[in-house]
Every structure is written in C-alpha cells, then in structure tokens.
C-alpha cells in the first residue's frame, strides 16, 4: 500500500511535471525554432472589407520573393462544409482571388531573411482595389438588397435552422412573458502566443514537416494534405509547446497552407509568426451572437416555454474543420440546457458578413446561450417577485430525474443542479449582500448580486457530430503505451496539451492503473509522426477521451507485465498486483520491479520460458465512452458587484463558483482551468470587444485597444467542488476545460442589473463597458450624476 501522503494517482493535486521547463524559460514554442537557411514570411493583407482585386504589383527586383494566388494555382481553397440541409459552401482561397471579403484577408506572401526584411518587401507591394459596398452588420446582411459576400449564393445565409413548436396555447396561458433582445460582442480569443508555423521539406523522407502552434495536429495535417494535394503520410505536423489555444489553434489557417507551400517551393525552411495586429484584426475572431428571446412562465416563475430567434455573425468564410454553422446550430440544441420546459422553438441563422471568419472559442456557443437564458430567467424572477435563485431551483432538472433527456434530446449523464445553486447561495451568503443593499454605500456606488447556471457537454462523440456533417467527426481516442527497457513508461497521444497539464494528469492515470510513479511516465503528444491519430484537443474532451485511452493502454500493459512477471515469479498472473512501481505477489512481500520486468523482456529473454507470450510491452489501445452523448459538468457562478453609475464602471467584489466536474483527476489543475476560464469570461462580460466601423475596418488592433483582463480586473475567485461521477467515463471524470468561460457574462450582467433595477436599467449586451452602461443610464433618464464630495 502506498502511504496516504505519498499518493500520486487520481484525485491528488500533484504539482505539474511540465512546469520545470517553463519556469526556466525552456519552453519550446514555435517562434523559438530556427533552422539554417530559414527565411521569414510577412503577408500583404487586404485593407478593404469588400473589393475586387485588380493588378498586384510586385516590387522591382523582389519579384521572386512575392507570391500571389496565381503563383499558388495548384493549391486548393479551404472548404469546410456542413451536411445540414441548406448549408451554403464557401471556398476560402489561401491568397485572395479576384475579390477580398474582409479586412486582413491574405493578398500576397513575401519572404526575406528576417521578418523585418519580409515586411520591408510587403510594404512595397501595390494592390489595386475596386471597392465594393461591404456588409458589416449581420442584420444588414439579412436585408433583401444587401451586398453579397458570395455572389452565387443569392443571399448571405450560410445556414438557417429551425426547431418548430406550437406555442399558441402557451402564449395564452403564460402569466409571465418576458421578451429580450440580447447581444454579445465580437471578440478575440487572444492567447498570449499567436499562431506560427515553421515548415521545411525533408528530402530523405520525402516529407513536409510543419511545426505549428496547433491544438489539433492530426486535423491540421489532413487539412494541409487536402489543400496541397499531398498524401497525409507526406506531411508531418508537430505542435511543440503552444502558448494557449482556447479553440483558436484548432483552425486550419490559410497562412499555414501558404507557408507549407513555400517551404516545398523553396526547399528551405520557412517561418511565419503571427503578430498581435494580425491576430486581433484578421484571424482570432469569435462570439458575435444576437438573440431575440422570449421566456414564458407561470405566475410562480415556472418556465413553460422558450422561443428564440438567434443570429450569428459567421464572417466571410466557413473555417476548417468546425464550419460556419457550429455556433448557430449549437445554439438551437443547447439553449434550454438543464432547465425543464414544456415547449421550445428556435430559429437560427448563420450569416456571412465582410468580417473575419468567426471561430469557436472556449465554451463555443455556450457563453452566448448562457447569457441569453440566464438574463431571461432573471427577468422572469423580477416579474414573479422572487429571488433569482428560487426561479432557478423551480426550473432546474432535479437529481432524481437523472439521467435526463431534455427537450432538445440532450442526454444529461448525472448531477445535482439545484444543489449547486443552493451551495453557491450559501457560500456566497446572499443575505449578507441583500442586507448591504438596503443602505447606501459610502462611495455612492450601487451593489448588485447575480448568478448564472450552465452545463458543459464534453467529450461528446459521433452521434452528436455526425448530424452536423462537418469535415471532422470524432469517434474514439487512442493511446500508445510502451514500457521501456529501463522501466520508464512512454505514453503517446494524438491530442495536445497547451496549458491543461496533460503531461501530469495522464501520468496520474497511469499511476492509478499501473502503480508507476508519475515521475517515471513520459507523455509524447502533438506530433503526427510519433502519436496515434486523434481529432485533437477541443470540446473539453482530453481528460475523458485521452484519459480513457491511457487507462485502456495501461491496463493492457499491466496485463502483459503480470504475464511476464508471473513467469519469473512462478505464480499465476492473477495473483499479482501492481503497486509502487513493483509487481507484487498479493499478500506477500515477494515482488519484482517494473524496471526488472522490462529489462528481462527486452534484454534478458533467456530468463523467460519458451511459452511466454511474445506480445511485448508496447501497445496501442482505443477508447470510447460507454455512450457518446458526452459528460455533463455544470456550475453555478455567483457574484457581487459595485456599479459606479457616474463612470459606468463595474467592480467585482466577490465571485464564487460551485462546480461539478465529476471525479477530479488533479483538483489543482481543475481549479486552474476554472480560474482561467472565469477570467476570460470576465473579459467577455466587461472588457473585450472587437468593434468595426461602417466600412468593416476592425478598430481594436493592439492590446491597448483590445482590453484583456489583468490581475486588477480578476478578483480572488472562490471555488467549491461537487463530485458527481459520470457513469459514462473511465473513472467518473467529466470534461471541464471550457466551463469557466461560459457563465461570467451572465452572472455579472445579472448582478449589474440587480444593482440598477431601481433605476429601470437592464443591460442586455456585453461587454458592459462604461460607454454602454452610461448610455443605458442616460436613456433611463437618471438624474444627472450626483456629486459625492467624499470621493
């Protein structure tokens, strides 16, 4: 038995194995990779949102260092179709062809011996534009006479979906009917490291090697292969250390295709490192949703129906592999979430505009959906004259209904949602805040409290994605495990860890199964040449899917270790247990170490009898969950805010998260995911916004304009855990990587609205910036700002 204090398996807050290199500046990010003879790329990008391209002038003497689409004629456009009925296909040329459709679209590729030199050349390229009227706002795009982003479509709608229901009876019966127009701004995921590529051609292997800041390297390879007309085997994609992904690094970028092509063309290593301006304005765009939503409830606030028209601004192109319809299609299926209702109708549009393509960001559609639903529930609570948490308790699916299939057919595997609310209310001490609200604050600010609930479907598989028919349907996950001759366990997975700590947590899984010290486990990930196929890291799936695959592969290694050890110790394999790095005869102190077993197997096979199974100590095992509808983690976020009605600022005074992520593999890392997600959600709620002018020019091009929350904007978040095990996964674990980013906009907006309810102000759009808040206050005809000499 391992002493309790020494346990390093599942459930232990083990410090991370990967920290050592990062703390000494030894992380290996793509920008750190340099090669002899390497050239660097800078792109010429469209300065107009919508225009026909005329002549592109290459600077005299530098013609061989500038490439336009006609030079890349054999390269295919990026296409990401959905099989959903009515989906209209877009083809994104890797360099613009005939027309540009958003500011920042690639027009030409230039290279130099340094990035600075490449930029010098790019600055000399002339591009003739014939400007076209841009369509910038998604509602303008839906107008009959709107300019067309893709002319042959006839309109600007990628996809329209409809969940119909007859609400006539509900409309006449509902005592409460709240109708709201709710909007979330376009945002940028803004990982601290941008995208980046280093590509070179390996003559010996006849293989293009592409280092890319990517979270789904096998999918990147498939996309590159199809654009470059190469067999997948002729491409190796390596995702080295990656400085944050958040969904952005799951996308195949045209830049990746161009740089890979150039490496083949030149026969030299080529590097492109995305700068912040490129990232903010042209690439990492996300989140822009609009909801016209109506909630029907009885007089007590019990929900009867939700009716919603949702429009998502998908930007100019459908991005590979998730497509332009992921967000809106998700909206219609996840809007009701854990709430019970009798009827539900939802109509969605994925709309093309002359803006950068919208990409899935942590939480994907959930953040917008949670914002819309939770604001409506608070509005219902106000109508019903109840505490918002009481309305939640009245409508959430109760634990005795688990497993539960909701009105859109989502299968909730487990959980006690009302308990999460009760615990949040208790941890947060709502009565304390209600009491404080009754007295004016000395500094004149207004206090408000708010909460929000969401569920996070994670590690969902084939049955969920097949219906969308996007280029990538997940099914299973694999792990290759190898016990090396020295007893070190190598694990290989095709997903990628870029902050989630998989090098540690998967070693903990191996410890749980094989009893091996995590220090003796090496995880190899994110390299298509070294790892089994995987759809990669997305959808909060790794701890369930890769964790399950690691457990399967380790079980098989354990079986084979016991077989060999049984021969050596002359006992039946079933009499052997694996613990503390040893194979022990159960109930005795006779044992042999894993290292000795491995040594004998590889280096001293003469010690084994002839009938030993030659299967060896290396295996690849696949895994899928018992049912592929996904694990459902969930949380209740509750917060208190102080609103300065003179300046329109919001300070978060307290923030509590009660989270149920099933069984926690490493609670410290889980907390880190929740803290980090919540901080991003605070950014969505109060700071982050990518505005455009009427001509489609993005207006936040630096981090001085695009405000990311810093240490002064994020409070000391408190977390409480519930651990309802999922019946679907190996150890009862659930995916929780995204959830933190889902609820904060809703919880904070509800708190702000609570603070301002006496003033008749309700904020329905995020971020809740001072500009928006003061405009809303002015509209509500608040008396002019009160002077507060105490300040």
């Amino acid at each position, binding site marked *: 038995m391992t002493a309790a204090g020494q346990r390093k398996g599942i459930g232990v807050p083990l410090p991370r194995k990967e920290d050592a290199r990062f703390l*000494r500046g030894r992380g290996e*990010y793509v920008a750190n990779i340099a090669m002899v003879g390497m050239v660097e790329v800078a792109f010429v990008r469209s300065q107009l949102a919508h225009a026909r391209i005329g002549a592109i002038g290459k600077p005299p003497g530098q013609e061989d260092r500038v490439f336009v689409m006609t030079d890349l004629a054999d390269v295919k456009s990026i296409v990401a179709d959905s099989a959903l009925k009515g989906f209209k296909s877009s083809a994104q040329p890797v360099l613009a062809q005939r027309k540009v459709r958003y500011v920042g679209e690639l027009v030409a590729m230039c290279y130099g011996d340094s990035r600075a030199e490449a930029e010098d050349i790019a600055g000399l390229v002339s591009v003739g534009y014939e400007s076209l009227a841009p369509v910038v706002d998604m509602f303008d795009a839906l107008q009959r006479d709107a300019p067309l982003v893709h002319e042959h479509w006839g309109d600007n709608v990628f996809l329209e979906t409809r969940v119909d229901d007859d609400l006539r009876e509900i409309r006449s019966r509902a005592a409460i009917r709240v109708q709201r127009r709710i909007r979330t701004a376009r945002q940028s995921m803004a990982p*601290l490291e941008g995208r980046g590529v280093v590509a070179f051609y390996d003559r010996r292997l006849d293989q293009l090697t592409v280092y890319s800041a990517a979270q789904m390297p096998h999918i990147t390879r498939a996309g590159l292969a199809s654009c470059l007309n190469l067999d997948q085997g002729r491409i190796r994609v390596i995702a080295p250390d990656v400085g*944050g992904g958040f969904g952005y690094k799951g996308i195949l970028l045209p830049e990746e295709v161009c740089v890979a092509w150039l490496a083949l063309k030149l026969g030299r290593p080529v590097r492109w490192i995305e700068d912040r301006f490129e990232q903010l304005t042209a690439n990492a765009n996300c989140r822009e949703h609009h909801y016209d939503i109506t909630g029907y409830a009885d007089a007590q606030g019990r929900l009867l129906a939700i009716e919603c028209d949702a429009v998502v601004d998908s930007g100019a192109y459908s991005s590979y592999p998730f497509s332009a319809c992921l967000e809106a299609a998700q909206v219609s299926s996840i809007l009701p979430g854990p709430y019970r209702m009798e009827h539900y109708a939802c109509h969605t549009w994925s709309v093309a505009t002359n803006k950068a393509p919208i990409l899935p960001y942590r939480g994907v559609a959930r953040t917008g959906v949670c914002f819309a639903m939770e604001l409506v529930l608070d509005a219902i609570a106000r109508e019903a004259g109840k505490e918002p948490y009481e309305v939640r308790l009245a409508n959430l699916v109760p634990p005795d209904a688990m497993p539960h299939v909701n009105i859109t057919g989502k299968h909730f595997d487990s959980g006690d949602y009302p308990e999460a609310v009760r615990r949040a209310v208790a941890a947060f001490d709502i009565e304390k805040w209600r009491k404080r609200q009754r007295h004016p604050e000395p500094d004149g600010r207004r206090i408000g409290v708010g909460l929000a609930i969401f569920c996070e479907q994670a590690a969902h598989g084939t049955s969920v994605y097949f219906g969308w028919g996007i280029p990538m349907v997940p099914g299973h996950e694999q792990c290759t495990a190898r016990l090396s001759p020295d007893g070190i366990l190598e694990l290989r997975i095709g997903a990628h860890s870029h*902050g989630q700590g998989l090098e540690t947590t998967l070693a903990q899984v191996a410890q749980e199964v094989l009893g091996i010290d995590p220090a003796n486990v090496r995880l190899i990930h994110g390299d298509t040449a070294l790892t089994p196929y995987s759809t990669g890291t997305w959808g909060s799936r790794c701890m369930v899917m890769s964790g399950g695959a690691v457990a399967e592969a380790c079980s098989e290694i354990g079986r084979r270790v016991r077989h060999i050890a049984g021969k050596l110790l002359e006992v039946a394999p079933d009499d052997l247990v694996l613990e503390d790095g040893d194979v022990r005869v159960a109930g005795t102190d006779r044992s042999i170490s894993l290292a000795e077993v491995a040594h004998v197997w590889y280096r001293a096979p003469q010690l084994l009898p002839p009938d030993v199974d030659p299967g060896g100590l290396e295996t690849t095992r696949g895994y899928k969950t018992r049912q592929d509808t996904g694990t459902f983690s969930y949380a209740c976020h509750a917060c208190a805010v102080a609103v300065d009605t003179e300046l329109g600022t919001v300070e978060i005074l307290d923030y509590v998260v009660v989270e149920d992520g099933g069984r926690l593999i490493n609670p410290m890392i889980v*907390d880190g995911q929740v803290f980090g997600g919540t901080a991003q959600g605070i950014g969505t709620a109060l700071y982050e916004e990518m505005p455009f002018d009427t001509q489609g020019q993005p207006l936040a091009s630096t981090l001085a304009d695009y405000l990311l929350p810093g240490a002064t904007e994020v409070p000391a978040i408190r977390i409480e855990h519930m651990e309802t095990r999922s019946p679907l996964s190996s150890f009862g674990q659930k995916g929780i990587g995204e959830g933190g980013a889902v609820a904060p906009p809703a919880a904070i907006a509800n708190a702000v609205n609570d603070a301002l309810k006496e003033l008749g102000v309700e904020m329905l759009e995020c971020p809740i910036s001072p500009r928006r808040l003061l405009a809303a206050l002015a509209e509500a005809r608040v008396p002019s700002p009160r002077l507060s000499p105490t300040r």
Partner: protein
Amino acid sequence: MKIVALTVNGKPVRAAVEPRTHLADFLRERLRLTGTNLGCEHGVCGACTLMIDGVPARSCIAFAAACEGAEVRTIEGFDEDALMERLRQAFTAEHALQCGYCTPGMLVTAYDIVTRLPDADEARVREELAGNLCRCTGYVGIVRAILHVLATQRARS
C-alpha cells in the same frame, strides 16, 4: 549596422546589430536565448519583460543598439538565483502557470515586486502585476505564489 557591447546574463557580448533590431529579437535570434517570449511587440502584454541594469523593462521596445554597456538579465540568467528559485517553487506549488508563455516575464516582474516592495499586500501585488497579462490562470495562482514568497521573506527577516 552598429557595434554594441553589453553584458547578457553576466557574460560580455559584442555584436553588430541593425539599429532597428529590438532587444528581444537580438536575444532570441542572435544569442538563442528564447526564454524571453514576444506577446504583442507594442509594450502592453509584458511577456518580454526582463531586467536591464537590475530593473524590469520591455525588451520589445528597447533597441539592442541602445543597450550599449547595459547589463541584461533574461530568465535564463536566473537559473542559479536563490530568490528566483523560491519564486519558481511557489509558482509550481500554487499552479501559477499553464501554457507557460507569460511565465518568464511574470517571474521577472514577481522578482521585482518581492525585492522592491517587501511589504506589498494583495492589492499592491495585483496593481504591480497589471502590466503582465496571463490568459490562462486568472492570476489566482500567480498572486498567491508572490504573496507566499513575500510572507516567507518577512518571516525570515
């Protein structure tokens, strides 16, 4: 080209540089000291923070040619530093890093906080961290780690 002579992590360096080359590119591309990460190259994110003459500075908006005679210390130059070792241990114990990209700059700023402001409280630590963005941790672990080192330091003295 300009000849510049400076000290990097205690070692003298003499090199010809293009005046436009900023210090971070010089360190990363010429000296292969890649621990200094670039996050925005306009002085906001703090990822490239390192020490010039003993105080934190943004290496993306300092030109290498302007560092004549300067003592530059990057994250790699703190390998054997006892205080930095305490910070590293606290960072790992408090899970103050995830993707690791902001970490070198964050550690340099943390080092400055614990040496310059030994009595800093949580509010002050947060204020001093305002110029170092982290997109992963929500700052919870970072603030705790720095407060922990400050507290141990105070307990010792």
